[in-house]
């Protein structure tokens, strides 16, 4: 599973930071290690759950888009096709531009043709795309069951569906746009907070190193805490953004943090 690998790697990043943090608090290696192992297990469960939910919600957007495209294409073809079977075949044969939603339609219609209607089309079902949206599942189950529509009923049915899918599609599109704006704002805040932490640590270190001699362990503790906070913040809040946690965000935040915290000590503060 793709997301299991992601969850494992994110958990390992989290756990290594947690181990560093605990180890800087106490010199007891065994205690730090065993506590980190427990944390690995629980954080893995959390991250895996988050990734699954985010995947499912993201797929729903695509499902609604696919349903809308399917109905639109069906209505376009209704003038020439006289029954459900030929209509599905027409939609299936429409050139595919390679977008995710269109590929999904192709898979679904191929699956329908294979399973219920045209059993001769064996290889065309490209794995019967998995549907996460309950509404889309419902519509395609209905199509599977009803293969005796006449032209007039089909037209009414598709018009009704079009009405619904247009609302859903526009709704999902609007939601996606709003999420994109929020994501941008959130990303800026993430970077700003990691930069602030790095800047504060450096300023603090420069100001106190002449007045206080034994700061190393305290500063190490604080640096590892800051790293851990950034990890929690960046890894887990990715779920809020309805996207998969990526290493790019982590790397950017850590790099900015490290650049501001560790680089020229007596330099440009």
């Amino acid at each position, binding site marked *: 599973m793709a997301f299991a690998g992601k969850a494992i790697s994110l958990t390992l990043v989290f756990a290594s930071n947690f181990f560093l*943090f*605990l180890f800087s*608090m*106490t010199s007891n290696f065994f*205690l*730090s290690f065993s*506590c980190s192992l*427990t*944390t690995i297990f*629980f954080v893995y*469960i*959390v991250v895996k759950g988050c990734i699954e*939910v985010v995947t499912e*919600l993201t797929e*729903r957007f695509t499902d609604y888009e696919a349903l809308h495209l399917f109905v639109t294409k069906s209505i376009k073809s209704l003038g020439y096709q006289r029954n459900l079977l030929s209509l599905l075949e027409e939609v299936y044969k429409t050139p595919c531009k390679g977008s995710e939603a269109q590929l999904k339609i192709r898979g679904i219609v191929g699956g329908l043709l294979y399973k219920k209607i045209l059993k001769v089309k064996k290889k065309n079902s490209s794995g019967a795309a998995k549907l996460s*949206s*309950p*509404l889309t*599942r*419902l519509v395609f*189950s*209905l199509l599977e069951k*009803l293969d005796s*529509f006449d032209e007039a*009923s089909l037209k*009414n*049915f598709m018009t*009704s*569906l079009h*009405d*619904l899918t247009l*609302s*859903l599609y526009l*709704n*999902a599109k*609007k*939601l996606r746009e*709003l*999420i994109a704006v*929020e994501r941008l704002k*959130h990303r800026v805040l993430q970077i*700003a907070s990691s930069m*602030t*932490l790095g800047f504060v640590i450096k300023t*603090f270190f420069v100001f*106190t190193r002449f007045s*206080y001699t034994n*700061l190393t362990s*305290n500063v190490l*503790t604080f640096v590892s*805490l*800051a790293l851990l*906070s*950034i990890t*929690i*913040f960046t890894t*887990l*809040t990715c779920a*809020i953004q*309805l996207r998969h946690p990526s290493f790019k965000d982590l790397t950017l935040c850590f790099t900015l943090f490290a650049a501001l915290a560790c680089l020229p000590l007596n330099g440009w503060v």
Partner: protein
Amino acid sequence: MSSESVIILSSILMAIFSAIFDHQLKELRKRNFTTGSNPLLFKMLSIMRHVHQNIPSSFIALARLDSSRQILPSQLRSLAWKLSLGYRLETKTLDLPPFMGFFDPFTRNEQKINEHMFQEIIGDLRRRLFTTNIRNIITLIITGITITPVIVIISALFYQKGILEVLPIVTSLFYGIVLQLIVVVLKRYASVLI
């Protein structure tokens, strides 16, 4: 309290927070992400009625879909059964969301209803997700919590080094708060996606 016991306590806290979060996430998925009244469900309902008027056989087929798969919410499923048995739909039987209190969704002017309902859905979406500024508040809280240890460490270094020992507890609480905020926001997003 020694630093060892603080570390063990913080690990236990993290484990408890993780278990609670996992349970909440499972509950959310079990209910198929629908929480509270969802405007899109009412839209779906009006379409089902439309389908029923035009193609009775399709509606009966819709009602006879495998109920064990739990595709439709129970409210809609029971209504589908009733309609297929000749039951007349009454608006009073539905729990209408607050914004729909002033009109009947099943009048004849479908086009007007669709436009109105769509605007209301978008308006409700915006109101629920963004005009409350919930996400801005969450981000500010999280940023605030991230910066808070700075004050703790400064006071610890200059006055009481003992404060440093509490840092693992602060971290585990931070972890728990972030998880709870994720649940709140996921519920808000998921409730508008059927």
